[in-house]
């Protein structure tokens, strides 16, 4: 079986483009991340994850402004990193308030963090009131009327909020 020449060409073009971006912009990105994050290890991690994701970009060999692309990807990765740490810290803080504090196992740490990130992604697309309505309903078992009273909106609105959240739950589960 022969591989079409055009496919080989575009593969080579991609690789060549990636190498040139890596050589020109990796030191630059890492330096800027070090300045911004004030943490050498984080900067290295974010920079290398950024290039890993760049490698998966579809039209890499046609990319005109690699630095703009790099910054967008790096920001997204940084955002996830910060958010994950924040949630982890809040979770550990919460563990310590329990009557009998527990030290979570690595396994439970991993699973809880993953679940928290899923929940965070679902809530992230919702308004502040919709987030509250959803959690009041699902975690505290409040009725729509009680939630409506608490949030000073109509029960119909509460229903809408929760419906939005449920749709997002399904979408997150399908993804």
């Amino acid at each position: 079986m022969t591989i079409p020449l055009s496919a080989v060409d575009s593969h080579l073009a991609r690789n060549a483009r990636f190498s040139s971006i890596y050589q020109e912009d990796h030191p630059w990105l890492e330096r800027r991340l070090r300045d911004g994050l004030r943490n050498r290890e984080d900067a290295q991690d974010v920079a290398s994850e950024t290039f890993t994701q760049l490698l998966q970009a579809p039209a890499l060999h046609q990319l005109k402004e690699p630095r703009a692309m790099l910054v967008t990807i790096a920001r997204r990765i940084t955002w996830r990193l910060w958010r994950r740490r924040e949630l982890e810290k809040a979770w550990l803080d919460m563990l310590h308030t329990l009557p009998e504090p527990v030290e979570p196992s690595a396994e439970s740490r991993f699973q809880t963090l993953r679940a928290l990130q899923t929940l965070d992604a679902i809530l992230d697309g919702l308004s502040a009131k919709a987030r509250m309505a959803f959690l009041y309903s699902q975690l505290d078992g409040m009725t729509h009327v009680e939630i409506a009273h608490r949030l000073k909106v109509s029960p119909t609105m509460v229903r809408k909020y929760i419906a939005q959240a449920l749709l997002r739950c399904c979408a997150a589960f399908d993804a």
Partner: protein
Amino acid sequence: MTAAAATPSESARLAAIEWQLCLSGGSATDDDRQAFDAWLTASPLHGAAWQHLNAALGNALRVIDPKLLTAAGPLRRSLLRPQDTQRRRLNKLLLASGALLAGGAWLDRQIPLRHVAADYVTGTGQRRRVLLPDGSVMELDARSAASAEFAPGKRLVRLETGAAVFELAGSATALAPAVNLPLRILTGEGEVRLNAGRALVQCDAGRSLCVALAGDAEIITRQGQRRRLAAGQGAWFDTRQVDATQEAQAHAAAWQEGQIEVHNEPLQRVVDALSRYRPGWIRVSPAASRLRVSGLFPLDDTDRALEALRHTQPITLRRFGTLYVMIDVSAPQA
């Protein structure tokens, strides 16, 4: 994958959500519960959809010990806290020295972090103004997506879905070295070229619309047919040809003001626009979709718009919970 875990049909999913809302809302009656049982057993698809919804909820909530998510605890606060401060900090990160990005697009404070690269996406009920790298402004209608490609010799926006109004920067700036190139807006059917002024571009299934709002706009179909539009004129086009030019079409951009204005157009047009602003579904029977409608309807309050339609058209609205509305023609009076 088992049948129960398979993605259910959209209608079964929405029905399951309605039942979840009904049963957990606190005012379900015995009749409701009986009706729910009947629904659940009426079809294996219903059972599967119900199970899928509950699995999705479990996936989001049940792994975490509920004791840790109490209303006043730090974990709940962290999940609920508006994330704007962090977002601002993040936007400042890597922009500090400024020299880097010629693109004003990156100044946009709300780059959706969920979408990679230069993609601008709006959700249901959202409109959004984006500053493009050349200083032009793109305003996206709800449920729209576009990406921008700017480089020396290249001034391009791909409108992937939905609609947008483009307003070109008044004069050349340092940000716009390529300003004597027209701004090209690509859709699935062809492209629109703008040299100045303001124009609306909209994607529909298999065809696109361009309306020149101020200044000229030029349509070029994929197969090369061209048409120049003067301010106020609009025309639909597909990959082959441009339809007849229509006069006084500026109202097509009324969504910028949160309204839809139609002049003797199919009801389906209005419903399509409302759907962009409303979670869930609006179904229109084929007979009703052919009704012609004129008027001005609010987009930001779709319930009011639907009521207005019901008052002015020979239609009935049937609501099933909050998520779907069915529109049909009224039965003829005996």
